[in-house]
């Protein structure tokens, strides 16, 4: 029987922030061309030091899912989205600081993955990432691959970000990470923004049963309860297991 894809989406703003202050974004799309079905998923993490980062993250995630992303010509992709970002903002009579923020641009990460499903029993995928939003490939109770970072330590460096202002993107092309492979029925792919991804790797190093915990999240309130509890738990090192940040999870199951 041909493979199918199921997906679920969970998100929560930082503790202390309102729902409308959430600055991550997620998106998905399906389209069929000849005998192949293309399933696209993307997450983006708008940088909280910039303004209007939520709109920018949203444009990047939806731009990827609309098939506009081309990793070889990333500047073209960004330039169109930058124009859309500016159009969405009413730049008429902004106070001096908002104008200044607008000039410096918004910043965001992006991680996206495309699955190509045919009649075959396995599915091919291509992933792309800029920054520290991550994609995990899960088989059974194990993480069999993760992308684009190498270890928990990598979360402690400032991530490379995509800016809505072209002047900040000069060296960006060199930071576009790509990953391709095949997936089999039963595999799961988890897209996570940095705080949650860092949490998963840290917990996984201690005890792999954490994978079951993520599988076990069924409804929105499970996710909220889980995030709130992990934000309060301290690691042996003295910091919290889950950093207080916006969190986003897309769970993609291949069945």
């Amino acid at each position, binding site marked *: 029987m041909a493979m199918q894809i199921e997906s679920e989406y969970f998100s929560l703003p930082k503790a202390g922030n309102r729902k409308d202050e959430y600055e991550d974004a997620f998106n998905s799309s399906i389209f069929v061309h000849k005998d192949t079905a293309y399933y696209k998923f993307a997450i983006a993490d708008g940088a909280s030091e910039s303004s209007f*980062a939520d709109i920018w993250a949203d444009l990047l995630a939806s731009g990827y899912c609309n098939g506009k992303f081309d990793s070889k010509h990333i500047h073209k992709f960004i330039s169109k989205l930058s124009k859309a970002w500016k159009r969405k903002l009413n730049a008429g009579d902004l106070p001096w600081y908002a104008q*200044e923020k607008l000039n410096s641009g918004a910043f965001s990460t992006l991680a996206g993955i495309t699955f190509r499903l045919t009649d075959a029993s396995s599915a091919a995928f291509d992933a792309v990432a800029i920054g520290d939003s991550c994609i995990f490939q899960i088989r059974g109770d194990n993480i069999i691959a993760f992308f684009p970072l190498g270890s928990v330590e990598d979360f402690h460096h400032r991530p490379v970000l995509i800016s809505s202002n*072209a002047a900040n993107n000069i060296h960006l092309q060199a930071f576009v990470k790509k990953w391709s492979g095949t997936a089999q029925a039963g595999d799961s792919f988890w897209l996570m923004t940095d705080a949650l991804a860092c949490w998963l790797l840290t917990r996984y190093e201690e005890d792999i049963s954490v994978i079951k915990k993520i599988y076990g999240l069924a409804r929105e309130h499970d996710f909220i309860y889980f995030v709130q509890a992990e934000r309060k738990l301290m690691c042996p090192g003295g910091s919290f297991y889950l950093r207080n940040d916006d969190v986003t999870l897309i769970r993609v199951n291949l069945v």
Partner: protein
Amino acid sequence: MYSAEISRSNPSCFLFMIDQSGSMSDPFGASTKAESVADAINRLLQNLIIKCAKSEGIRDYYHVGVIGYGASVGPAFGGVLAGKELVPISEIADHPSRLEKRLKKIPDGAGGVVDQLVKFPVWLDPVASGGTPICQAMDTAHTILSQWVSEYAHCFPPVVIHITDGESTDGDPTPAMEQIRALATDDGNILLFNLHISSNPNAVNLSFPETSDELPDRYSRMLYESSSILTPFMIWVANQEHQLNLSDRARGFVLNADLTLVVQALDIGTRPANLR
């Protein structure tokens, strides 16, 4: 320590203390000491506000004050903010004394730069008159900060940034600065930065030293001794983002820095790890 999250419900505090004495009219670089200091403070306030600016407006992550001392000691804001000691940063954002238009060089995205006309907010104008009552100024700051730390006992402690030529006319300010550093919240002691603008011909440019070996005179040594040791996060920012190679005994002291370095110094002092 120094790990409290800075948020709207748990704000932190910046207090700038600026020398406005007569000696600040001495030349410094292409302008005077007073002009350089006013310009640095205006830029710094601007940077701080921009950090707190979000799509919907300014988030009050900080309470900010500027104390000037010279012919008198007291709050140095002009316009609507005149006389106020500590002000939520959104009020500062909305009330510069004026907006100047300036040309700013910005990258054009193709490796070059272009001029862009930007609005430059001004809160402080250069002032240079009277003596240098550092002790009195520190006592004033102590009163303001005591009240703040008792009201916000769980918050990230205040950062005090003092810019001076150091020649106190009302006694040795060492004990008064020590008293300020002794103030604390649950999250740590107040951090005191001293930025010294020296006229001593032997003064070299120094930033965040860990010893007083290269300091030219007793003024700079006094200010060095009175400066806080940088927090691990500040050292991390300095080394990672400003390529400074500081050791873990580096102090919040800068001697005769050019304006860029002063702003850089202030950036290190104003970049907490955990802004939310």
